[in-house]
Protein backbone atom coordinates (compact mmCIF):
# COMPACT_ATOMS: atom_id res chain seq x y z
CA UNK A 1 0.00 0.00 0.00
CA UNK A 2 1.29 3.43 -0.97
CA UNK A 3 -0.11 6.93 -0.53
CA UNK A 4 -1.32 7.41 -4.07
CA UNK A 5 -4.66 8.80 -5.19
CA UNK A 6 -6.51 6.83 -7.87
CA UNK A 7 -9.01 8.77 -10.01
CA UNK A 8 -11.68 7.11 -12.11
CA UNK A 9 -11.52 8.80 -15.52
CA UNK A 10 -15.14 8.79 -16.60
CA UNK A 11 -15.90 9.07 -20.32
CA UNK A 12 -18.68 8.43 -22.82
CA UNK A 13 -16.55 6.28 -25.12
CA UNK A 14 -15.17 9.25 -27.06
CA UNK A 15 -14.55 12.08 -24.60
CA UNK A 16 -13.84 12.54 -20.89
CA UNK A 17 -16.97 13.46 -18.92
CA UNK A 18 -17.48 16.23 -16.40
CA UNK A 19 -14.67 18.43 -15.24
CA UNK A 20 -12.11 15.64 -15.30
CA UNK A 21 -9.09 17.97 -15.45
CA UNK A 22 -10.31 19.62 -12.25
CA UNK A 23 -10.79 16.25 -10.57
CA UNK A 24 -7.15 15.55 -11.47
CA UNK A 25 -6.14 18.91 -9.92
CA UNK A 26 -8.00 17.94 -6.75
CA UNK A 27 -6.32 14.51 -6.77
CA UNK A 28 -2.91 16.15 -7.19
CA UNK A 29 -3.55 18.47 -4.25
CA UNK A 30 -4.46 15.53 -1.99
CA UNK A 31 -1.60 13.35 -3.28
CA UNK A 32 0.95 16.11 -2.57
CA UNK A 33 -0.26 16.40 1.01
CA UNK A 34 -0.33 12.64 1.50
CA UNK A 35 3.12 12.21 -0.03
CA UNK A 36 2.05 10.19 -3.05
CA UNK A 37 1.02 10.86 -6.64
CA UNK A 38 -2.08 10.58 -8.82
CA UNK A 39 -2.95 7.59 -10.95
CA UNK A 40 -5.76 7.76 -13.51
CA UNK A 41 -7.92 4.66 -13.95
CA UNK A 42 -9.07 4.33 -17.55
CA UNK A 43 -11.48 1.61 -18.67
CA UNK A 44 -13.07 1.18 -22.10
CA UNK A 45 -12.35 0.45 -25.74
CA UNK A 46 -9.87 3.30 -25.84
CA UNK A 47 -9.56 5.04 -29.20
CA UNK A 48 -7.24 7.77 -30.47
CA UNK A 49 -9.39 10.73 -29.44
CA UNK A 50 -9.82 9.58 -25.86
CA UNK A 51 -6.21 8.52 -25.35
CA UNK A 52 -5.09 11.88 -26.75
CA UNK A 53 -7.27 13.68 -24.25
CA UNK A 54 -6.03 11.49 -21.40
CA UNK A 55 -2.38 12.14 -22.31
CA UNK A 56 -3.07 15.82 -21.63
CA UNK A 57 -4.15 15.17 -18.03
CA UNK A 58 -1.79 16.12 -15.20
CA UNK A 59 -1.69 12.61 -13.69
CA UNK A 60 1.66 11.00 -13.06
CA UNK A 61 0.44 7.60 -14.17
CA UNK A 62 -2.45 6.01 -16.01
CA UNK A 63 -3.45 2.40 -15.54
CA UNK A 64 -5.66 1.41 -18.45
CA UNK A 65 -7.80 -1.59 -19.29
CA UNK A 66 -8.69 -1.35 -22.97
CA UNK A 67 -10.71 -4.07 -24.62
CA UNK A 68 -13.20 -4.23 -27.51
CA UNK A 69 -15.77 -5.74 -25.13
CA UNK A 70 -15.68 -2.48 -23.13
CA UNK A 71 -16.93 -0.33 -26.00
CA UNK A 72 -20.20 0.23 -24.22
CA UNK A 73 -20.40 0.87 -20.47
CA UNK A 74 -21.36 -2.33 -18.65
CA UNK A 75 -21.30 -2.18 -14.85
CA UNK A 76 -19.97 -5.70 -14.16
CA UNK A 77 -17.17 -5.54 -16.75
CA UNK A 78 -16.14 -2.02 -15.75
CA UNK A 79 -16.15 -3.00 -12.08
CA UNK A 80 -14.06 -6.05 -12.83
CA UNK A 81 -11.55 -3.96 -14.79
CA UNK A 82 -11.38 -1.48 -11.90
CA UNK A 83 -10.69 -4.32 -9.47
CA UNK A 84 -7.64 -5.25 -11.56
CA UNK A 85 -6.57 -1.59 -11.60
CA UNK A 86 -6.93 -1.41 -7.80
CA UNK A 87 -4.69 -4.49 -7.49
CA UNK A 88 -2.11 -2.89 -9.77
CA UNK A 89 -2.15 0.62 -8.29
CA UNK A 90 -2.81 -0.26 -4.62
CA UNK A 91 -3.95 3.32 -3.88
CA UNK A 92 -4.57 4.97 -0.52
CA UNK A 93 -7.49 7.04 -1.80
CA UNK A 94 -9.92 6.39 -4.68
CA UNK A 95 -11.96 9.24 -6.18
CA UNK A 96 -15.04 9.06 -8.37
CA UNK A 97 -17.31 11.78 -9.65
CA UNK A 98 -20.69 11.67 -7.88
CA UNK A 99 -22.24 10.77 -11.23
CA UNK A 100 -24.60 7.92 -12.09
CA UNK A 101 -21.67 5.74 -13.09
CA UNK A 102 -19.72 6.75 -9.96
CA UNK A 103 -22.71 6.01 -7.76
CA UNK A 104 -22.97 2.57 -9.37
CA UNK A 105 -19.30 1.51 -9.35
CA UNK A 106 -17.86 3.08 -6.19
CA UNK A 107 -20.04 1.32 -3.56
CA UNK A 108 -19.55 -2.07 -5.27
CA UNK A 109 -15.77 -1.70 -5.21
CA UNK A 110 -15.67 -0.37 -1.64
CA UNK A 111 -17.81 -3.31 -0.48
CA UNK A 112 -15.52 -5.80 -2.17
CA UNK A 113 -12.42 -4.19 -0.62
CA UNK A 114 -14.11 -4.03 2.83
CA UNK A 115 -13.20 -0.36 2.62
CA UNK A 116 -14.88 2.82 3.83
CA UNK A 117 -16.84 4.90 1.33
CA UNK A 118 -18.06 8.46 1.80
CA UNK A 119 -20.22 9.76 -1.02
CA UNK A 120 -21.50 13.06 -2.41
CA UNK A 121 -18.57 14.99 -0.93
CA UNK A 122 -18.35 18.75 -1.27
CA UNK A 123 -14.65 18.81 -0.44
CA UNK A 124 -11.76 16.65 0.71
CA UNK A 125 -8.74 17.76 2.71
CA UNK A 126 -5.69 16.19 4.33
CA UNK A 127 -4.85 17.18 7.93
CA UNK A 128 -1.90 15.52 9.69
CA UNK A 129 -1.80 12.97 6.85
CA UNK A 130 -5.42 11.97 7.51
CA UNK A 131 -7.99 12.52 4.81
CA UNK A 132 -11.38 13.97 5.70
CA UNK A 133 -14.47 14.83 3.69
CA UNK A 134 -17.12 17.50 4.00
CA UNK A 135 -20.58 16.40 2.93
CA UNK A 136 -24.20 17.54 3.39
CA UNK A 137 -26.59 16.08 5.96
CA UNK A 138 -30.31 16.44 6.66
CA UNK A 139 -31.39 18.21 3.49
CA UNK A 140 -28.30 20.38 3.72
CA UNK A 141 -29.45 21.94 6.98
CA UNK A 142 -25.89 21.19 8.05
CA UNK A 143 -22.59 19.96 6.67
CA UNK A 144 -20.47 17.40 8.43
CA UNK A 145 -16.71 16.85 8.50
CA UNK A 146 -16.37 13.07 8.16
CA UNK A 147 -13.40 10.76 8.44
CA UNK A 148 -13.16 7.23 7.04
CA UNK A 149 -12.54 4.57 9.74
CA UNK A 150 -10.62 1.40 9.17
CA UNK A 151 -8.13 0.32 6.56
CA UNK A 152 -7.55 2.03 3.20
CA UNK A 153 -8.23 2.34 0.36
CA UNK A 154 -10.64 5.15 1.19
CA UNK A 155 -13.34 5.62 -1.43
CA UNK A 156 -15.03 8.97 -2.07
CA UNK A 157 -17.48 10.26 -4.64
CA UNK A 158 -17.25 14.01 -5.22
CA UNK A 159 -20.03 16.37 -6.10
CA UNK A 160 -17.54 19.14 -6.72
CA UNK A 161 -13.77 19.53 -6.62
CA UNK A 162 -12.61 22.78 -5.02
CA UNK A 163 -8.84 23.08 -5.41
CA UNK A 164 -7.00 25.25 -2.90
CA UNK A 165 -3.57 25.44 -4.51
CA UNK A 166 -2.56 24.61 -8.06
CA UNK A 167 0.43 22.29 -8.10
CA UNK A 168 3.55 22.64 -10.21
CA UNK A 169 3.09 21.85 -13.89
CA UNK A 170 3.43 18.14 -14.64
CA UNK A 171 6.61 16.77 -16.16
CA UNK A 172 5.13 15.68 -19.44
CA UNK A 173 2.38 13.22 -20.27
CA UNK A 174 1.48 10.48 -17.79
CA UNK A 175 3.18 7.10 -17.96
CA UNK A 176 0.65 4.56 -19.20
CA UNK A 177 0.48 0.98 -17.96
CA UNK A 178 -1.94 -1.31 -19.79
CA UNK A 179 -3.34 -4.35 -18.09
CA UNK A 180 -5.61 -7.03 -19.54
CA UNK A 181 -9.28 -7.37 -18.80
CA UNK A 182 -10.14 -10.24 -16.50
CA UNK A 183 -13.76 -10.95 -17.33
CA UNK A 184 -15.99 -11.75 -14.37
CA UNK A 185 -16.90 -15.44 -14.01
CA UNK A 186 -20.59 -14.79 -14.57
CA UNK A 187 -22.09 -11.92 -16.53
CA UNK A 188 -25.62 -11.13 -15.41
CA UNK A 189 -26.18 -7.83 -17.18
CA UNK A 190 -26.31 -7.54 -20.98
CA UNK A 191 -26.31 -4.29 -22.96
CA UNK A 192 -29.20 -3.77 -25.33
CA UNK A 193 -28.12 -0.41 -26.72
CA UNK A 194 -27.51 3.23 -25.90
CA UNK A 195 -29.82 6.02 -26.96
CA UNK A 196 -29.69 9.77 -26.77
CA UNK A 197 -32.80 11.68 -25.92
CA UNK A 198 -34.44 13.12 -28.98
CA UNK A 199 -34.49 16.88 -28.76
CA UNK A 200 -36.65 19.45 -30.43
CA UNK A 201 -34.80 22.36 -28.88
CA UNK A 202 -31.32 22.45 -27.39
CA UNK A 203 -31.61 24.48 -24.18
CA UNK A 204 -27.84 24.38 -23.67
CA UNK A 205 -27.44 26.90 -26.51
CA UNK A 206 -29.86 29.48 -25.05
CA UNK A 207 -28.51 32.86 -23.90
CA UNK A 208 -31.37 33.40 -21.51
CA UNK A 209 -33.27 30.72 -19.62
CA UNK A 210 -36.35 30.98 -17.44
CA UNK A 211 -36.67 27.75 -15.47
CA UNK A 212 -39.64 26.42 -13.53
CA UNK A 213 -39.46 24.25 -10.41
CA UNK A 214 -41.86 22.50 -8.11
CA UNK A 215 -42.49 25.82 -6.32
CA UNK A 216 -44.71 27.00 -9.18
CA UNK A 217 -47.33 24.84 -7.46
CA UNK A 218 -49.74 23.95 -10.25
CA UNK A 219 -49.38 23.03 -13.90
CA UNK A 220 -51.61 25.98 -14.79
CA UNK A 221 -48.89 28.31 -13.47
CA UNK A 222 -46.50 27.18 -16.21
CA UNK A 223 -48.29 29.72 -18.36
CA UNK A 224 -46.97 32.69 -16.37
CA UNK A 225 -43.46 31.23 -16.54
CA UNK A 226 -43.78 30.87 -20.31
CA UNK A 227 -45.10 34.43 -20.61
CA UNK A 228 -42.09 35.74 -18.69
CA UNK A 229 -39.75 33.74 -20.93
CA UNK A 230 -41.40 35.16 -24.01
CA UNK A 231 -41.15 38.74 -22.71
CA UNK A 232 -37.45 38.21 -21.98
CA UNK A 233 -36.73 36.39 -25.24
CA UNK A 234 -35.70 33.42 -23.14
CA UNK A 235 -36.02 29.64 -23.43
CA UNK A 236 -38.13 27.73 -20.91
CA UNK A 237 -36.40 25.02 -18.89
CA UNK A 238 -37.21 23.14 -15.68
CA UNK A 239 -35.91 21.14 -12.75
CA UNK A 240 -36.44 17.40 -12.41
CA UNK A 241 -39.82 17.34 -10.58
CA UNK A 242 -41.48 19.31 -13.40
CA UNK A 243 -40.23 16.81 -15.99
CA UNK A 244 -41.16 13.86 -13.73
CA UNK A 245 -44.71 15.21 -13.51
CA UNK A 246 -44.79 15.44 -17.29
CA UNK A 247 -45.49 19.20 -17.22
CA UNK A 248 -42.53 19.85 -19.53
CA UNK A 249 -40.63 17.41 -21.73
CA UNK A 250 -37.51 15.87 -20.20
CA UNK A 251 -35.28 17.57 -22.82
CA UNK A 252 -35.99 20.84 -20.98
CA UNK A 253 -34.58 19.49 -17.74
CA UNK A 254 -31.47 21.12 -16.27
CA UNK A 255 -29.23 19.14 -13.90
CA UNK A 256 -27.14 15.98 -13.58
CA UNK A 257 -29.83 13.86 -15.22
CA UNK A 258 -30.64 16.52 -17.80
CA UNK A 259 -28.68 19.29 -19.48
CA UNK A 260 -25.77 21.38 -18.29
CA UNK A 261 -26.36 25.02 -19.23
CA UNK A 262 -24.43 28.24 -18.73
CA UNK A 263 -26.53 31.02 -20.24
CA UNK A 264 -25.93 34.71 -19.66
CA UNK A 265 -29.12 34.90 -17.62
CA UNK A 266 -30.81 32.12 -15.64
CA UNK A 267 -34.06 32.96 -13.88
CA UNK A 268 -35.01 30.17 -11.44
CA UNK A 269 -38.71 30.29 -10.59
CA UNK A 270 -39.76 28.13 -7.64
CA UNK A 271 -36.63 25.98 -7.83
CA UNK A 272 -35.39 24.79 -4.43
CA UNK A 273 -31.80 24.38 -5.57
CA UNK A 274 -30.99 20.72 -4.92
CA UNK A 275 -27.42 19.87 -5.81
CA UNK A 276 -28.67 17.73 -8.73
CA UNK A 277 -30.10 20.82 -10.34
CA UNK A 278 -27.41 23.31 -9.31
CA UNK A 279 -24.71 21.15 -10.92
CA UNK A 280 -26.38 21.86 -14.27
CA UNK A 281 -26.67 25.68 -14.03
CA UNK A 282 -24.17 27.04 -11.50
CA UNK A 283 -21.90 28.48 -14.19
CA UNK A 284 -24.58 30.81 -15.60
CA UNK A 285 -23.31 34.40 -15.71
CA UNK A 286 -26.29 35.95 -13.92
CA UNK A 287 -28.55 33.83 -11.72
CA UNK A 288 -31.80 35.28 -10.42
CA UNK A 289 -33.78 33.17 -7.97
CA UNK A 290 -37.42 33.78 -7.20
CA UNK A 291 -38.85 31.59 -4.47
CA UNK A 292 -41.41 31.83 -1.67
CA UNK A 293 -39.15 29.94 0.75
CA UNK A 294 -36.44 32.24 2.17
CA UNK A 295 -34.37 29.16 3.12
CA UNK A 296 -34.35 27.70 -0.41
CA UNK A 297 -30.83 26.51 -1.28
CA UNK A 298 -31.03 28.19 -4.68
CA UNK A 299 -30.22 31.47 -2.88
CA UNK A 300 -26.76 30.02 -2.16
CA UNK A 301 -25.85 30.08 -5.84
CA UNK A 302 -27.95 33.01 -7.06
CA UNK A 303 -26.62 36.53 -7.58
CA UNK A 304 -30.00 38.10 -6.87
CA UNK A 305 -32.82 36.66 -4.83
CA UNK A 306 -36.46 37.59 -4.42
CA UNK A 307 -38.62 36.01 -1.72
CA UNK A 308 -42.16 36.37 -2.94
CA UNK A 309 -45.27 34.63 -4.17
CA UNK A 310 -44.47 33.60 -7.74
CA UNK A 311 -48.02 33.71 -9.02
CA UNK A 312 -48.40 37.39 -8.18
CA UNK A 313 -44.81 38.48 -8.88
CA UNK A 314 -44.02 36.86 -12.25
CA UNK A 315 -46.71 38.82 -14.17
CA UNK A 316 -45.27 42.05 -12.70
CA UNK A 317 -41.82 41.06 -13.93
CA UNK A 318 -43.26 40.13 -17.32
CA UNK A 319 -44.89 43.55 -17.58
CA UNK A 320 -41.66 45.32 -16.64
CA UNK A 321 -39.83 43.36 -19.35
CA UNK A 322 -42.49 44.16 -21.95
CA UNK A 323 -42.41 47.85 -21.00
CA UNK A 324 -38.65 48.02 -21.36
CA UNK A 325 -38.94 46.27 -24.71
CA UNK A 326 -41.55 48.75 -25.93
CA UNK A 327 -39.46 51.69 -24.80
CA UNK A 328 -36.69 50.36 -27.03
CA UNK A 329 -34.32 49.30 -24.29
CA UNK A 330 -33.74 45.98 -26.00
CA UNK A 331 -34.63 43.56 -23.26
CA UNK A 332 -35.33 40.91 -25.84
CA UNK A 333 -31.93 39.52 -26.69
CA UNK A 334 -33.23 38.35 -30.08
CA UNK A 335 -33.82 41.96 -31.05
CA UNK A 336 -30.54 43.21 -29.71
Amino acid at each position, binding site marked *: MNLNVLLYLEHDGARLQGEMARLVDKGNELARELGGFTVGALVGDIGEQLSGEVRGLKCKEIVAVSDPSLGEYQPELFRSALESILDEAAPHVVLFRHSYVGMELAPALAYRRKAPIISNCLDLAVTDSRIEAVRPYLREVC*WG*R*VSPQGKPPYFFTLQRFPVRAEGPAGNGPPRVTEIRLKSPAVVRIRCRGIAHRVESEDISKAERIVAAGRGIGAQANLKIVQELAEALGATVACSRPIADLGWLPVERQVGISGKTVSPKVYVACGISGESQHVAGMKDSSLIIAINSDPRARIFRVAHYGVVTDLVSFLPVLTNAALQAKRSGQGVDSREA
Partner: protein
Amino acid sequence: MRLAVCCKGIPDEPRNVSLSTDGTRLSFETGSFILNESDEYALDEAIKWKKKIAAEVTAFALGGLEAQEILYLALAKGADDAVRIDSMAGSPLEVAALLGKAVERKRADLVLVGVQSADHMASLVGGLLAESLGWPFVFAVTSLEIAVDRPTVIVQRELGEGRLQRLEVDLPSVLAVQTGICPLTYAPPARRLRARQRALEVLDPEQLGFSPELLERCRRERIEEIMPPVMARSATMLQGSPQEVAALLVDRIRAAT
Protein backbone atom coordinates in the same frame (compact mmCIF):
# COMPACT_ATOMS: atom_id res chain seq x y z
CA MET B 1 -42.59 -13.42 -7.90
CA ARG B 2 -41.83 -11.27 -4.89
CA LEU B 3 -40.82 -7.65 -5.16
CA ALA B 4 -39.15 -5.95 -2.21
CA VAL B 5 -39.15 -2.18 -1.82
CA CYS B 6 -36.92 -0.34 0.65
CA CYS B 7 -38.70 2.74 2.03
CA LYS B 8 -37.06 5.43 4.10
CA GLY B 9 -38.83 7.89 6.35
CA ILE B 10 -37.06 11.22 6.16
CA PRO B 11 -37.58 14.35 8.26
CA ASP B 12 -39.79 16.91 6.64
CA GLU B 13 -38.15 19.98 8.17
CA PRO B 14 -35.14 19.03 10.27
CA ARG B 15 -33.84 21.66 12.69
CA ASN B 16 -31.75 22.00 15.88
CA VAL B 17 -29.34 19.33 14.71
CA SER B 18 -26.77 17.96 17.15
CA LEU B 19 -24.13 15.25 16.86
CA SER B 20 -23.67 12.39 19.34
CA THR B 21 -20.27 12.39 21.07
CA ASP B 22 -19.17 9.18 19.30
CA GLY B 23 -19.80 10.80 15.92
CA THR B 24 -22.28 8.17 14.77
CA ARG B 25 -25.67 9.80 15.12
CA LEU B 26 -27.36 13.10 14.31
CA SER B 27 -30.25 14.17 16.54
CA PHE B 28 -32.75 16.73 15.32
CA GLU B 29 -36.29 17.99 15.63
CA THR B 30 -38.74 17.79 12.78
CA GLY B 31 -42.40 18.44 12.05
CA SER B 32 -42.99 14.98 10.66
CA PHE B 33 -41.41 12.15 8.71
CA ILE B 34 -42.34 11.61 5.09
CA LEU B 35 -41.68 8.79 2.65
CA ASN B 36 -38.54 9.62 0.68
CA GLU B 37 -39.53 10.72 -2.83
CA SER B 38 -37.53 8.29 -4.97
CA ASP B 39 -38.53 5.42 -2.64
CA GLU B 40 -42.16 6.36 -3.21
CA TYR B 41 -41.60 6.03 -6.96
CA ALA B 42 -39.96 2.62 -6.34
CA LEU B 43 -42.98 1.58 -4.29
CA ASP B 44 -45.52 2.76 -6.87
CA GLU B 45 -43.58 1.05 -9.66
CA ALA B 46 -43.60 -2.23 -7.69
CA ILE B 47 -47.34 -1.93 -7.05
CA LYS B 48 -47.93 -1.21 -10.73
CA TRP B 49 -46.25 -4.55 -11.54
CA LYS B 50 -48.13 -6.34 -8.79
CA LYS B 51 -51.33 -5.52 -10.64
CA LYS B 52 -49.90 -6.52 -14.04
CA ILE B 53 -48.20 -9.81 -13.24
CA ALA B 54 -49.67 -10.93 -9.92
CA ALA B 55 -46.48 -10.32 -8.00
CA GLU B 56 -46.37 -9.83 -4.25
CA VAL B 57 -44.88 -6.65 -2.83
CA THR B 58 -43.17 -6.41 0.54
CA ALA B 59 -42.16 -3.00 1.89
CA PHE B 60 -39.14 -2.74 4.20
CA ALA B 61 -38.20 0.14 6.46
CA LEU B 62 -35.62 0.62 9.16
CA GLY B 63 -36.18 2.59 12.33
CA GLY B 64 -38.67 3.24 15.09
CA LEU B 65 -42.18 4.65 15.05
CA GLU B 66 -41.49 6.95 12.09
CA ALA B 67 -40.65 3.87 10.01
CA GLN B 68 -43.94 2.31 11.09
CA GLU B 69 -45.87 5.28 9.70
CA ILE B 70 -44.05 4.95 6.39
CA LEU B 71 -44.95 1.25 6.23
CA TYR B 72 -48.63 1.96 6.89
CA LEU B 73 -48.53 4.29 3.91
CA ALA B 74 -46.91 1.51 1.83
CA LEU B 75 -49.71 -0.89 2.82
CA ALA B 76 -52.34 1.74 1.99
CA LYS B 77 -50.79 2.18 -1.44
CA GLY B 78 -51.11 -1.57 -2.05
CA ALA B 79 -48.10 -3.41 -0.60
CA ASP B 80 -49.04 -6.94 0.51
CA ASP B 81 -46.99 -6.91 3.66
CA ALA B 82 -44.47 -4.79 5.50
CA VAL B 83 -41.37 -5.45 7.57
CA ARG B 84 -39.87 -3.01 10.05
CA ILE B 85 -36.29 -3.57 11.09
CA ASP B 86 -36.09 -2.27 14.61
CA SER B 87 -32.75 -0.50 14.47
CA MET B 88 -31.53 3.06 14.63
CA ALA B 89 -28.50 2.21 12.47
CA GLY B 90 -27.65 5.18 10.32
CA SER B 91 -24.58 4.43 8.21
CA PRO B 92 -25.29 3.17 4.69
CA LEU B 93 -23.36 -0.09 5.13
CA GLU B 94 -25.19 -0.97 8.37
CA VAL B 95 -28.53 -0.23 6.71
CA ALA B 96 -27.62 -2.27 3.62
CA ALA B 97 -26.40 -5.23 5.69
CA LEU B 98 -29.62 -5.37 7.72
CA LEU B 99 -31.85 -4.91 4.67
CA GLY B 100 -29.91 -7.64 2.84
CA LYS B 101 -30.65 -10.23 5.53
CA ALA B 102 -34.31 -9.18 5.73
CA VAL B 103 -34.70 -9.40 1.93
CA GLU B 104 -33.13 -12.88 1.94
CA ARG B 105 -35.54 -13.98 4.63
CA LYS B 106 -38.48 -12.89 2.48
CA ARG B 107 -37.01 -14.62 -0.61
CA ALA B 108 -37.49 -11.58 -2.83
CA ASP B 109 -36.66 -11.89 -6.55
CA LEU B 110 -36.28 -8.19 -7.24
CA VAL B 111 -35.45 -5.33 -4.89
CA LEU B 112 -36.33 -1.75 -5.76
CA VAL B 113 -34.77 1.16 -3.89
CA GLY B 114 -34.88 4.89 -4.62
CA VAL B 115 -31.80 6.52 -6.17
CA GLN B 116 -31.23 8.80 -3.22
CA SER B 117 -32.66 9.74 0.15
CA ALA B 118 -33.39 13.43 0.16
CA ASP B 119 -31.96 13.88 3.68
CA HIS B 120 -28.37 12.60 3.47
CA MET B 121 -28.17 12.22 -0.33
CA ALA B 122 -25.59 9.43 -0.21
CA SER B 123 -27.01 7.06 -2.90
CA LEU B 124 -25.10 4.15 -1.35
CA VAL B 125 -27.62 1.74 0.16
CA GLY B 126 -28.77 0.17 -3.14
CA GLY B 127 -25.26 -0.63 -4.39
CA LEU B 128 -24.07 -1.93 -1.01
CA LEU B 129 -27.25 -3.99 -0.60
CA ALA B 130 -26.73 -5.63 -4.00
CA GLU B 131 -23.15 -6.54 -3.06
CA SER B 132 -24.21 -7.92 0.31
CA LEU B 133 -26.67 -10.20 -1.52
CA GLY B 134 -24.25 -10.92 -4.38
CA TRP B 135 -26.85 -9.72 -6.90
CA PRO B 136 -26.45 -7.47 -9.95
CA PHE B 137 -27.23 -3.79 -9.49
CA VAL B 138 -28.31 -1.02 -11.84
CA PHE B 139 -28.51 2.63 -10.81
CA ALA B 140 -30.86 5.36 -12.12
CA VAL B 141 -33.52 3.15 -13.69
CA THR B 142 -36.16 5.11 -15.61
CA SER B 143 -38.22 2.22 -16.97
CA LEU B 144 -38.74 -1.41 -16.04
CA GLU B 145 -40.24 -4.36 -17.91
CA ILE B 146 -40.99 -7.59 -16.07
CA ALA B 147 -42.36 -10.72 -17.76
CA VAL B 148 -43.78 -13.55 -15.65
CA ASP B 149 -42.08 -16.32 -17.57
CA ARG B 150 -38.68 -14.64 -17.97
CA PRO B 151 -35.79 -14.92 -15.49
CA THR B 152 -34.57 -11.46 -16.50
CA VAL B 153 -35.90 -7.90 -16.51
CA ILE B 154 -35.35 -5.22 -19.14
CA VAL B 155 -34.50 -1.78 -17.81
CA GLN B 156 -33.74 1.59 -19.24
CA ARG B 157 -31.32 3.60 -17.17
CA GLU B 158 -29.73 7.05 -17.26
CA LEU B 159 -26.01 7.49 -17.82
CA GLY B 160 -26.17 11.28 -17.41
CA GLU B 161 -26.21 14.17 -19.89
CA GLY B 162 -29.19 12.78 -21.77
CA ARG B 163 -27.68 9.34 -22.49
CA LEU B 164 -29.92 6.35 -21.87
CA GLN B 165 -28.95 2.69 -21.83
CA ARG B 166 -31.10 -0.43 -22.20
CA LEU B 167 -29.98 -3.43 -20.20
CA GLU B 168 -31.19 -6.96 -19.68
CA VAL B 169 -30.58 -7.94 -16.04
CA ASP B 170 -30.76 -11.43 -14.52
CA LEU B 171 -32.99 -11.98 -11.50
CA PRO B 172 -32.58 -11.76 -8.59
CA SER B 173 -31.28 -8.21 -8.74
CA VAL B 174 -31.38 -4.79 -7.12
CA LEU B 175 -32.47 -1.68 -9.04
CA ALA B 176 -32.16 1.94 -7.90
CA VAL B 177 -35.20 3.70 -9.33
CA GLN B 178 -35.27 7.30 -10.55
CA THR B 179 -38.05 9.70 -9.72
CA GLY B 180 -40.59 9.91 -12.54
CA ILE B 181 -40.49 6.19 -13.46
CA CYS B 182 -44.31 6.06 -13.11
CA PRO B 183 -47.09 8.41 -11.98
CA LEU B 184 -47.38 8.55 -8.18
CA THR B 185 -50.58 7.16 -6.70
CA TYR B 186 -52.62 8.74 -3.95
CA ALA B 187 -53.73 6.74 -0.92
CA PRO B 188 -57.08 8.08 0.31
CA PRO B 189 -57.46 8.66 4.09
CA ALA B 190 -59.95 5.78 4.49
CA ARG B 191 -57.47 3.34 3.05
CA ARG B 192 -54.67 4.76 5.17
CA LEU B 193 -56.84 4.33 8.25
CA ARG B 194 -57.56 0.71 7.34
CA ALA B 195 -53.86 0.07 6.76
CA ARG B 196 -53.14 1.09 10.34
CA GLN B 197 -55.17 -1.91 11.55
CA ARG B 198 -52.77 -4.29 9.80
CA ALA B 199 -49.98 -6.04 11.67
CA LEU B 200 -46.41 -5.25 10.67
CA GLU B 201 -43.65 -7.78 10.95
CA VAL B 202 -40.90 -6.45 13.23
CA LEU B 203 -37.40 -7.88 13.12
CA ASP B 204 -34.53 -6.84 15.34
CA PRO B 205 -30.88 -6.99 14.27
CA GLU B 206 -30.24 -10.11 16.41
CA GLN B 207 -32.97 -11.99 14.53
CA LEU B 208 -31.14 -11.06 11.34
CA GLY B 209 -27.87 -12.40 12.72
CA PHE B 210 -26.31 -9.09 13.76
CA SER B 211 -24.89 -8.65 17.22
CA PRO B 212 -24.16 -5.03 18.19
CA GLU B 213 -20.43 -5.74 17.66
CA LEU B 214 -20.96 -7.15 14.19
CA LEU B 215 -23.08 -4.15 13.23
CA GLU B 216 -20.48 -1.79 14.65
CA ARG B 217 -17.96 -3.30 12.24
CA CYS B 218 -20.19 -2.18 9.37
CA ARG B 219 -19.67 1.43 10.40
CA ARG B 220 -16.67 2.78 8.56
CA GLU B 221 -17.06 6.51 9.01
CA ARG B 222 -17.17 9.00 11.83
CA ILE B 223 -18.69 12.47 11.74
CA GLU B 224 -16.11 14.68 13.46
CA GLU B 225 -18.16 17.84 13.58
CA ILE B 226 -21.19 19.47 12.05
CA MET B 227 -21.32 23.04 10.82
CA PRO B 228 -23.69 25.39 9.06
CA PRO B 229 -23.41 25.12 5.26
CA VAL B 230 -20.93 27.51 3.70
CA MET B 231 -22.60 29.47 0.97
CA ALA B 232 -20.86 29.49 -2.38
CA ARG B 233 -22.42 32.85 -2.94
CA SER B 234 -24.87 34.79 -0.91
CA ALA B 235 -27.54 36.25 -3.13
CA THR B 236 -28.30 39.94 -2.84
CA MET B 237 -31.87 39.77 -1.62
CA LEU B 238 -34.02 42.36 -3.33
CA GLN B 239 -36.68 44.13 -1.34
CA GLY B 240 -39.24 46.78 -2.15
CA SER B 241 -42.51 46.91 -4.02
CA PRO B 242 -42.98 44.23 -6.71
CA GLN B 243 -42.73 46.97 -9.37
CA GLU B 244 -39.43 48.29 -7.98
CA VAL B 245 -37.94 44.79 -7.71
CA ALA B 246 -39.13 43.90 -11.23
CA ALA B 247 -37.65 47.09 -12.71
CA LEU B 248 -34.31 46.41 -11.05
CA LEU B 249 -34.24 42.80 -12.29
CA VAL B 250 -35.05 43.85 -15.86
CA ASP B 251 -32.21 46.35 -15.61
CA ARG B 252 -29.74 43.66 -14.44
CA ILE B 253 -30.92 41.22 -17.12
CA ARG B 254 -30.39 43.87 -19.77
CA ALA B 255 -26.90 44.66 -18.47
CA ALA B 256 -25.96 40.98 -18.53
CA THR B 257 -26.74 40.34 -22.20
